[in-house]
Structures are given as structure tokens and as C-alpha cells.
């Protein structure tokens, strides 16, 4: 899987590519409009991460330029601009998702995976992890071919954990994933613990392995 990150903030770009890079994900980086366009012309990407504010161009122009190529990559806008207008404009121009800075890298990875799932496996939305089978379209989970009953939050949590497998997730990143913008308003993120506990219990009761590890009571990890 190939990603192109268009971002002028070097520190952020480095950390994003560091987090996203893995065995099956390769992340390239362009820090201005010119390089970005060159790369898009030369290669095919599965997903483009686009910062709207670049020194030499308006991000929306890049979006138009990418769309002109008529390739099938997914596009996620990552922007500090958080207005309904810029969100709508971005989506109208053909972006698939819009993520406001600051965001958790785990959230970004989950969004990338969701888009790639949508783009690549049209019709077939089943994600398999050992004995666990997740139908992302029907929102059902099977363990050893047996359906298990999860709440919407537990389902989201499972998908998020597996998407970020072998990475430690902070409570605040899980809280944000589960409650969206509301997470910012919350004093503490302890409610995450209850959901994790329930998910863990349901998976184990169905005979799945104990993949969810608690790291010193503050973070969580799906260990493969």
C-alpha cells in the first residue's frame, strides 16, 4: 500500500510517515505543491494525505489537480481549518475524508484503512484476523464462524484496535475515536476502560485469543 503525504510541517510529516510506515504500508512525503504534483504524475498511490495550507499553493488547487488525473486514489484532507465551509468544499471537490489538526496518528491510520477498504474491496468488506472475521459493511463480527453481539462502540473499538495492531494506543486517542469531537470536552477518558473491558470479555467468551493488552493501565495494544 502506497501513501503520499503532502505536508509542509517537517516535524509532523516525519512523525506521520514514521507511524504509518510498516511492512505493508509505504509512505512518501512531499512538502510543496510542485513536488507533490510531480509525484502524483509519476506514480500511482492508494491514498493521498493533503494539508490544505502549503507555502506555495492553496490546498484546494492541489485537490483539483489530483482530481484532473482521474486516478482512483483516496484523498484525506488534514487541515487546521475547521469550518463547515472548507469541509464541504473539500468533500465537494472529491476528497474522501477530512481530518482536523490536531489528530491522533492512530486515528489517521484508521481513516486511511477505511478509505482503502472502500476503494479496493468493493463488495467484499470482510477483514480477517486469525479466528476473528469482521464485516465492515454489515457491521458484524464472527469468532470461529460464530456471530458475536457487539455494541456499535465495541465494534468501532475492535476495528480501531486491529487497524492499529502492534501499536500502543493512548486512552485519549481511543476516547476521541469513540466520541468524536465531544472527546475534547471531556475531563477524563476513563469511560474507554468500560468499553475495552466489555469487548475483551465478549471476545474471550467466544473463544478468541487475548489480543488486547493493557499497558500499565494507561494505554492499550492489540498484540498480533
Amino acid at each position, binding site marked *: 500500500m502506497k501513501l503520499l503525504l503532502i505536508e509542509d*510541517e517537517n*516535524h*509532523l510529516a516525519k*512523525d*506521520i510517515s*514514521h*507511524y504509518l510506515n510498516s511492512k505493508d504500508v509505504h509512505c512518501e512525503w512531499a512538502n510543496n505543491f510542485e513536488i507533490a504534483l510531480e509525484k502524483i504524475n509519476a506514480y500511482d498511490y492508494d491514498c493521498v494525505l493533503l494539508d490544505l495550507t502549503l507555502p506555495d499553493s492553496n490546498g484546494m488547487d492541489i485537490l483539483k489537480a489530483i482530481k484532473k488525473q482521474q486516478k482512483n486514489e483516496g484523498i484525506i484532507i488534514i487541515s*487546521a481549518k*475547521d*469550518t*463547515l*465551509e472548507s469541509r464541504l468544499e473539500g468533500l465537494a471537490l472529491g476528497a474522501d475524508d477530512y481530518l482536523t*489538526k*490536531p*489528530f*491522533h*496518528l*492512530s486515528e489517521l491510520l484508521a481513516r486511511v484503512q477505511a478509505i482503502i477498504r472502500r476503494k479496493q474491496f468493493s463488495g467484499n468488506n470482510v477483514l480477517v484476523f486469525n479466528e476473528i472475521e469482521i464485516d465492515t459493511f454489515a457491521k458484524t463480527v464472527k469468532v470461529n464462524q460464530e456471530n458475536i453481539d457487539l455494541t456499535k462502540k465495541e465494534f468501532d473499538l475492535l476495528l480501531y484496535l486491529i487497524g492499529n495492531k502492534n*501499536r*500502543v*494506543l*493512548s*486512552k*485519549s*486517542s481511543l476516547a476521541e475515536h469513540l*466520541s468524536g469531537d*465531544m*472527546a*475534547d*470536552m*471531556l*475531563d*477524563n*477518558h*476513563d*469511560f474507554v476502560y*468500560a468499553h475495552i473491558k466489555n469487548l475483551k470479555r465478549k471476545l474471550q467468551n467466544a473463544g478468541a485469543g487475548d489480543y488486547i493488552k493493557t*499497558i*500499565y493501565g*494507561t*494505554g492499550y495494544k492489540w498484540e498480533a
Partner: protein
Amino acid sequence: MGSINQAKTQKLLNQTLRGYLLFSVLILLISMPFAYFLMQKLHLDDIDEALFLRKKEFQAYHLPTFRLSEISQWNKYNRDTKLIDTLKIPQKDSLFFQSFYDELDKEVEPYRVLFVPVEIEKKPFLLLIKHNLIENEDLIFNILGLYAGLLLFLLLGLLGLTQYFSKRLWQPFYQTLQQIETFELGKTAAPNFEQTQTEEFERLNTVLQNLIEKSISIFQNQKEFIENAAHELQTPLAVLQAKLDVFLQMPDLSQTQMQALDSLYDLLARLNRLNKNLLLLSKIDKQIFHTLENIKLKEVIENQISFFEEQALQKNITLIINNLENKWVQANLTLIEILISNLLLNAIRHNHENGKISISLSHQKLIISNTGQANALPANKLFQRFAKIDTSTQGNGLGLAIIKKIADLYGWEVAYTFENELHVFEVVFE
């Protein structure tokens, strides 16, 4: 303007008029007796002069040829000039007031009398010349009446004219006053004062215009500063968050390191919240949330309730939903969601373990009450930015300021009361 002062204040115009009126009435009252006496004196002088003239006439035309035998005849035909034979004859001419009985009117009437010693055929006589004062009194009163009428007329004219001129003269002032009264910093445009011919008002308008423009520009700068600062903070916050996320992936982190990271995440979340709230406030100021729609408040509350129930559960707080009426409002949905979630989060945040929160919605108001600290909160500080009342919680002091701002936007009122150990927040519609 406070309502207490208002009862005592009077219009400028009325105050000036009252001064004029008092002065005029005073002058009128003082001048009336004075004018009466003056006029009486003038008139008496006139009568006396006439009496002396008649004496002169008598002495010139009648006396040289007058005979004693003619006296009875003369007295018979002259009512007001008589010759009297008496012993009490003064040495020189003398004037008196004397009353005589009038045969015609059958009453005693006042007269002005001139006694003149005369000699007819070497025999001394008293010449009596008199003038009836009754008609003269009438005349004086008529004149005085006319005088009073004139004065009154003058006064009324003066009043009317003052009123007219003052109104016209002060009109620019009242216009300016009205314009400043309706002006609200950050909400209405700067007032445009009309040009006036009066120098003082023109000066006032210029000074006000400058003052208002300066205030607007300072206000604008401040708003932009907050917005820019909050906006600029987003990138370093994003970098910081990404760094923490990467740091968290380091192998073999110790428990202390993990706990330190955890509190860094908490701090970062607070920083993010603060920044988002600041951005939200300036967005409301910039009227970014201008799209209105018809919103059923009950639905917004019900949609959010499960989220808050989950949050309340951690402190074992009971959420009681009372009667929710079908109240519709025309507002921006995002802002209404923020309003309600801020109210509920506040009720959870400042609550104690095993506390209670109750929500009710009528057509008039939305009431959210919660248990919490045992004393009332200082209502005057509550809705100000960064007025942290309860330092033990992680609120950033912007939640209520945002609630107030949203309510203000739609002309609603937010009220706080402390009743029966409950902190009650009300949003009163209309």
C-alpha cells in the same frame, strides 16, 4: 442608565423650561402691585392736574366777574365745582381724598377734592373742585388686566417658542443619543452621525465617532489576535500530539514513563479543549454559524443523552429527564448542540459522586439543575471568560461563556440560581 436614577432624571428641555417659567411668574407677581401703585399714582397726578386746570379756568374766566348773588345759581348747575361759604378756609390750595354721597347711584363714592381759597367781592370763599375716582379705579383695573393679559400672552409665546427652538436645536443631540444607545460593540456597525449646524454637537459627534471607531478597531484587533493565536497554536499542538503518539510506540517504556506520557496526553487534551473553545468563540463572533434551521430541542437533547449518561455513570450520577415539551427554535444546529452539551458537561463536571442532574424543557425555558458544592456560585462572575469558580475541576472557564454567547446570539437569557441545594441553570427563550 440604572432604573433607580431614571426616576429622578428629567428631560433637559423641561428643566430649562421650568427655569423660564419660574422666573416669569416671579416677575409677574412682583411687578403686579408695583405696576398697580405706579399706575394709580400716574393717574392721580393726571386727575390733580385736571383739577388745577379747572381751578385756573375758573380763576381766569369766571372769578373776575363773579358776583355774590350768582353763587347759589352756580352751585345749582355745577356738580363738581362748588363755592362754599365756610369759616375753615385754608391759606393755600390743598388736595384731599373725600367721600360723597351720590344721589344717583345711592352710594358713597370716593372723590379727589381740591380746595382753593378765593375772594368774591372781598368776601372769602372756598372753591371746591372734585373728581369722581370710581371710574378711574375701573380704568386702572382695566389697564392692569390688559397688562396681565399681555404678560400672560408673552409668557405663553415664550414657552412655545423655547420649546420649538429647543426641540429643533437639541434634535441632533437626541439623534446622537439614540444612535449611541442602539450601538453595541461587536454587534452593530458604527453609527453614522448626521452633520449639524451647532458647533458643540458637531464636536460631540466627531469625538464620539473617533471613540467608537477606535473601540471597534481595538475590539477587532483583539478578536483577530485571539483567533490567530488559537489558529497558529493548532500546528504545534498537532506536532506535539504526533510526537507523543510516536513516543508511545517506543519499546520497553517503563511504568513511570507511561504514566508521565499519560499525564502529557491529559494536558494536551486540556490544551486542545481550550484552543477549540477560543476558536469557537471567535467563530461565533465572526458569524460563521449563520445558517439557521428549525430545530426540535427535544430531539437534540435525546440524541445526546446516551453519551452523557455514559459520562455521568463514572461519577455514579443519576440523570433525570423530566417532561420535555415539543419546543421548536430557529437556530444553528451546531451551536444548539454545543449549548446543550456544554450545559450537561458542566452539570457533570461540577457534580459530586452519586449526584443528580435533572433536565426539563418547556416552551418558555430549558432547565438543567444539578447537585454540587454546597454554596451558591457567584452569579456575576459565572458567565465571564476564564472566571474559574471551582479550581478543583479541569474546566477552562470558557464553557459558560460559550453558553452565554450562544444564548445572546438568539436573544435568550441564561440565568443561574441556587435553590434547595441545587445549582439551577435556565435558558429562557424570548
